[in-house]
């Protein structure tokens, strides 16, 4: 069967797509940004120098240096010269509404809905398998990630992504878990926006409780439906907000 007019398979074409040479640098930057977002590294804290960073992460000094300069350019770290100099985690480095809005406006509606579709497929698959494999300890852990209605938007965003990661952990599939992590990285700080809306928080809080109950009761279908509702609530919110741009 011919997949393209030229008669070459589309998957073969993908093999010859150039590989991004900056992969490793981006990876190091991603790790540090993630450490900041999860509170492991805090504003004002001194970062290791490039030699220490390189040896800690098992990358070359060149990669570490490039990563530090990329982080400096994106405002994650600031550098001070002199005897008490070095690299420090910048102030106001946490994901902000402004940055999230900028990200939202960079995306097309097509990109948002396609990403949501992929996210939904993976998360629902996790939920279905999780419902089959859950035990009592799993459910206790899962419920510990349900945030309180008055938590701030940053903790809500973190709790929502941790909740879905826990669903993947209960499903006990390494592949699905890795895919979910990748998708959450693609979503970036976007998910911060709806978390500032009390209505969204009320709605998703109820869905999280339903999902946990369905996984506890080994009801795969209900767990899948709940997870899909959670993601579509997020997508609807983002698409509504994005439309205001026009």
């Amino acid at each position: 069967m011919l997949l393209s007019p030229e008669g070459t398979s589309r998957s073969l074409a993908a093999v010859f797509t150039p590989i991004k040479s900056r992969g490793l640098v981006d990876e190091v930057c991603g790790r540090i940004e993630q450490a900041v977002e999860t509170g492991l590294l805090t504003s004002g804290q001194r970062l290791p120098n490039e030699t220490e960073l390189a040896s800690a992460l098992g990358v070359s000094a060149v990669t570490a240096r490039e990563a530090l300069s990329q982080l400096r350019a994106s405002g994650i770290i600031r550098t001070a010269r002199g005897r008490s100099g070095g690299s420090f985690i910048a102030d106001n480095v946490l994901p902000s509404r402004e940055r999230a809005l900028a990200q939202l406006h960079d995306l097309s509606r097509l990109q948002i809905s396609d990403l949501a579709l992929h996210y939904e497929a993976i998360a629902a698959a996790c939920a279905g398998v999780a419902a089959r494999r859950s035990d009592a300890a799993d459910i206790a852990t899962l419920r510990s990630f349900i945030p309180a209605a008055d938590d701030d938007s940053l903790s809500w965003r973190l709790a929502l992504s941790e909740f879905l990661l826990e669903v993947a952990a209960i499903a006990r599939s390494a592949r699905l878990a890795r895919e979910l992590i990748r998708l959450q990285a693609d979503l970036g700080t976007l998910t911060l926006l709806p978390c500032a809306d009390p209505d969204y928080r009320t709605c998703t809080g109820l869905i999280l409780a339903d999902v946990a109950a369905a996984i506890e009761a080994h009801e795969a279908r209900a767990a899948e439906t709940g997870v899909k509702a959670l993601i579509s609530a997020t997508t609807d919110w983002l698409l509504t907000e994005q439309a205001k741009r026009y």
Partner: protein
Amino acid sequence: MSETTSTTGSLAAPAEPGPADRAAAELDATIAGIEQRLAVWAAETGAALGALSGKVTGTAVDKLIRPVVAELVQLPDGYAAGAGFIANSGLLGPERSYIAWWQGADLEPVDALANFSPNSISRYVKAEWFRIPVETGQAHVTGPYVDFLCTDEYVLTFTHPVFTRPDGPVAGIVGIDVTVQRLERGAMPSLRRIGGRATLVNGDGRAVVSAASDIDAGDLTAPEVPCQHYAVGRTFTVWSDAARL
């Protein structure tokens, strides 16, 4: 550790060990071997840390731990995908932990960025593989679970508390990560000799490796009646005939 334990049902255990008993003994030797190696390492690490007379630094810990990890992960036919030591708060400073953990044959450092965090202990206190050996002072096996911190693989983590003095507080833990995939290759020949539905399960009855096609690693299972039960290591069991719940 390798005794054939209770028989459920009417069949009496044979006087002479049969092929199934020998296969179960092999599995037990594999798991118990990992547990014993870890206990020896914990004792050696405790003694060496104690000899540092209170001046424990990250560099000193690395120097102590890395050669052992290298030996464990590079052992031909070895089971360790990764291994290391995590300090309990107090050893290097209050609220501070220290992770000296590497994975893979080229010794990739794990979570090393956490060593630059002033509150790194918060990362480990909730994790079962750290919390339980610290709280109980006993060895523990966690999993199988998807290990987000290290490999993102489906693994078992064997951990053992480290004491610098016999009556002292837990100074930290040593641990070995074993991927389910690696264990499966070692365990399948033995399981097949035990039976077509023989299943290696953890203490919760969760399948680690099964010879049955309808039981996947991670599924909750129960022994059929009748069924032979073989103890494997400290907490695992092989059921000669299991069913998915």
